[in-house]
């Protein structure tokens, strides 16, 4: 079933290839006017795109607003779609550019923003199952805040590269196509980004 194919994570090379071909096939059906295929694409890519945007802009409502724009653009472009690149590369390219533009346009506001409460949701949700003590919960929040700040302090392109590499498990070639640079430039971006994260999160023990 199309909708049951997970995105990226945990797929074998063959499974990944099948998912890639299936995405292109679905998009070609969308081009022919099949709205159900668009719903399937949305179902498969919705969460990865929103999560990526959330980690980029660190604001839940903005990330959803940007994600809406991403899928609107995909839908608008349906009649001109040609499967020349992987669908995931294309959709993350749109998402990355929207996020980079948003960060550029709001960079002054971001500096003055107080802590985003939504950023804590993850850890709270994670530890809730294990019935944490108040102290554990506070430590968890503090650690998460450190991670969030460390990511936020990365230059926007490095941030995008790390998020696509770590969470979306995109290949170097895909990240290169999305950021419009060479693969070696991506490797260098990633190495510098992880170097910064290593020094900022050196004391982080999970």
């Amino acid at each position: 079933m199309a909708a049951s194919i997970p995105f990226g994570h945990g797929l074998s090379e063959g499974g990944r290839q099948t998912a890639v071909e299936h995405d292109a096939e679905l998009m070609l059906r969308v081009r022919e006017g099949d709205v159900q295929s668009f719903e399937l694409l949305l179902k498969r890519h919705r969460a990865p795109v929103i999560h990526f945007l959330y980690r980029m802009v660190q604001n839940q409502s903005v990330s959803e607003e940007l994600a809406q724009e991403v899928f609107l653009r995909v839908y608008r472009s349906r009649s001109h779609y040609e499967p020349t690149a992987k669908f995931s590369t294309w959709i993350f390219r749109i998402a990355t550019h929207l996020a980079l533009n948003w960060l550029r346009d709001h960079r002054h506001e971001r500096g003055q923003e107080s802590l985003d409460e939504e950023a804590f949701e993850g850890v709270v949700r994670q530890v809730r199952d294990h019935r944490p003590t108040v102290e554990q919960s506070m430590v968890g929040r503090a650690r998460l805040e450190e991670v969030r700040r460390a990511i936020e302090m990365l230059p926007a392109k490095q941030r995008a590269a790390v998020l696509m590499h770590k969470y979306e498990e995109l290949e170097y070639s895909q990240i290169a196509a999305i950021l419009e640079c060479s693969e070696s430039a991506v490797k260098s971006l990633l190495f510098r980004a992880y170097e910064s994260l290593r020094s900022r999160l050196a004391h982080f023990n999970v």
Partner: protein
Amino acid sequence: MEPVRCPIQNSKNAAMLLDYLDRRLDWSATIEFERHISGCAACQQTLAAQREVWNALDSWSPGPVSEDFDRRLFERIGQEERKPVWTRAWRWLTTAAMPFHFKPAMPLAAACMVIVAGFLLQAPREADLGAELKTELLEVEQVEQTLGDVEMLRDLGVDDDAGIRL
């Protein structure tokens, strides 16, 4: 096989550490790199620190997606579908055709349109002028040729109209 150069010392090999942790290295490269790590304290330290970073990043999971996300999206799609064609075409031109908000693209496109419009307005006039000039030159040439012929006939003493010797 050439021994692995320390990725810490050599920026060219820097991604090797990530590839190793990510299991993206092939079998022989993995063996070779592990041989290097066993004797390199700097690499061991960096790998341990990188694992910690990844563990830290793993702890950051975003919140759930709003339940009405799809409904809002399809509402927006519906609204767009109901808009007049020219509005959609303009929207496509400014977003889908240029999905990356390349800001200088719009003024650049406007400038190009002005140049093209100017060229199109100018081009037919130039073509007309060219045609007029060509006709005039042809007429002058014909008159000159006729006068030359008449002169030649006069020289030969032939009446132009009657064809008899003057």
